[in-house]
């Protein structure tokens, strides 16, 4: 079914998928870039954002409150996790960091399963952005279009924080050389807490924004975590622009491959990742020799 209409609609679909992946991945990548911790609980935080948002939605009936509630709750959880657990692991080997974040992820998923059960829950977007839009080449759910806009705004906000504030400057300096920032008399560890919180919030925000698209379940973060890692590797580990580029590329690969043969879309994603690693071992926008 290689028609123009289908090609354009799938490319468009890839953009929507890619935007979401870009947002989740940027959270993952700034945490890794700054703290040096590979956060395997990121998928669980994505899921948690969905549930926290759903609860808020259940109480208030407001989509905007749900998004705010989901994002802020995960921000808080992120800070608690960093203060309570992660900060004791900065000087430990990478394997320990991976194990502890993996464990945190399992605990979060099982706690949610215990409290909410396994049936899927969903959030209804306001009528302004629900329904269907006819784009000429395809009719497309309006909410998914809105997702692109919402994610773009969120990424812009993240960009402004990272590139236009003093905090962002410290974060970016920390990514380059945390030891030197520390030596300059800046409390890097307090910055770490904020960065982990913001990274977690990006995942939680994406989780609640995604809830009307794909109803939330305790396992929803598992699949997305794997794709997110691929995005980060393609874009360049620790690179914020890289995460956005990687996300969009991954979205297009998944979408366009499924036009020809859906069974190969995941395979193609990994094939492209391998290719990128061969050609440019630090990812597309990664920097060689970064600490």
């Amino acid at each position, binding site marked *: *079914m290689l*028609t123009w*209409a*289908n090609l354009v*609609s*799938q490319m468009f*679909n890839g953009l*929507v*998928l890619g935007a979401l992946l870009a947002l989740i991945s940027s959270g993952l990548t700034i945490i890794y870039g700054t703290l040096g911790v590979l956060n395997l609980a990121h998928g669980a935080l994505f899921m948690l954002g969905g549930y926290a948002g759903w609860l808020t939605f259940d109480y208030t009936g407001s989509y905007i409150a749900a998004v705010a509630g989901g994002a802020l709750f995960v921000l808080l959880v992120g800070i608690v996790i960093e203060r309570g657990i992660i900060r004791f692991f900065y000087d430990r080997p990478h394997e320990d960091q991976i194990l502890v974040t993996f464990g945190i992820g399992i605990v979060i998923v099982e706690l949610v*399963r215990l409290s909410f059960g*396994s*049936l*899927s829950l*969903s959030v209804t977007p306001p009528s302004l952005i629900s329904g*269907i839009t006819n784009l000429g080449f*395809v*009719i*497309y*759910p309006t*909410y*998914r279009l809105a997702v692109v806009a919402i994610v773009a705004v969120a990424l812009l906000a993240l960009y402004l924080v990272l590139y236009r504030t003093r905090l962002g400057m410290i974060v970016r300096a920390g990514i380059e050389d945390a030891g030197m920032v520390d030596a300059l008399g800046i409390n890097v560890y307090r910055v770490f807490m904020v960065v982990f919180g913001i990274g977690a919030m990006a995942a939680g925000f994406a989780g609640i924004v995604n809830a009307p*698209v*794909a*109803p939330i*379940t*305790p*396992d*929803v973060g598992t*699949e*997305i975590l794997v794709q997110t890692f691929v995005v980060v590797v393609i874009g360049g580990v620790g690179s914020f622009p890289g995460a956005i580029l990687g996300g969009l590329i991954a979205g297009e690969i*998944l*979408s366009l491959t*499924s*036009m020809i043969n*859906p*069974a190969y*879309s*995941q395979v193609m994603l990994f094939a492209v990742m391998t290719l990128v690693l061969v050609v440019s071992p630090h990812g597309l926008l990664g920097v060689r020799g970064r600490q």
Partner: protein
Amino acid sequence: MAQDSSGRPDRTTGVTRRSVLLGGATLAAGTALLSPVVMRNAFAQDKKAPVGNYPAGSEGDSVFVGICTPRTGTYAAQGEDEIKGYQLAFEHINNGNEMLSKMSPNLGKKKGVLGKQIAHGVADSEAKPNTAVQAQTRFINQNKAMMITGSVSSAVAVAINKLAEREKTIYLPCITGSNDTTGKDCSRYSFRSCFYAETAANAIAPVLIKNLGKNKKVAFLTPDYTYGHTVRESTQKALEQQGGWQAVTNQLSPLGTTDFSSYLLNIANSGADVVVNINFGRDAVLSIKQAKQFGILDSMKLAIPYLAPFVAEEVGADTMQGVFAGTDYWWTLEDKFELAKMFNKAFRDKYNTYPEWGAAEAYLQVAMWADAVERAGSFYPPDVIKAYEKGEKFESLTGPVHFRAEDHQLVRPVTIVQGKKPGDMKTDNDYFSIVETVDGGPLMQKPDAFGCKLGDYT
């Protein structure tokens, strides 16, 4: 001196391969000839040669049943429902509930099976074959399980079929829709009671053709494993042959897909009149919801040959109204069947919720197993299997059923339902009206048509 087949004396042992083979064969033949005589004359029934966990697993006051269902992932809701059904069945059998005596005269009067209480363990399969095989192997080896049961994914069911055959332990799959479960992957030690791809297809095809017309274009949305493949094949064949329908696309998605947008765009651009959605459990919920979001259900009719009906609860009556589907059990069957009514009541008293198909199937499987064991008069697996294979009539929740000896498939009715309009629902759980309860026998293929060859008893 003994010589091997090449004529040279064997230097190490003095025994030749041929003589060993010959001796072995003679011994085996001798045992085979002797054993029935020996058994009948000299020993009581439970002195038979050990098979699987027999007799070790049936010597105590209780027998162990290993349950492995998905409690996490795509099929978690169905897995939990199955567990509830199993536990209700064990409770009824252990206490001698009178509902069982209406299903079979052999049941319900005494407590337990052959006087033994049923103990059980539960494990999470995650709907993954490897995980399920590990869990059931543990139940067989450590707990000496005399029966293992549970499934929502056919990939798990066919994997455990093979395990059951190897371990000589009876396995009762619960939900499994693939033709292969009692087809090319059938097992002497496994008995399937639910309906499946071929009967689903042959039951729903006439209803779809009658209501939607002939010569329609149909798109399939199919989970990419044995269940999805066989349901798609059977349904497509039935629709093509009986109504001249034409398949325009088949979208295969992996089990556990969360975003169906790419598949749905392909379907939206395919020009189909009808979407047949074969996804099950949460995959069904997500794909239907997203199809609605993409406006596909405004221009195409939806049909579901193999439906877990509580999908309606998550999808909403609004979307499900008018949709035709094939299913195993829906609670309003109680209007027609006394046993269904008793079952629903017992289930609701215990769990304060309605049973779905998994619970009804789990209950039926356990009851039929207890019946077969009672008729065999022993837990000796070959005798229990032969009792099953006699194909005796059993009163299920939805009318009389019996097992087919050739492929161990239950001959049972298939229920076709249609989604009610939200305004027509009498209670908040009254999602479907029963269109028809189709007699199962004529829907089935010939027993060997899907390549079933049952293995040995021992």
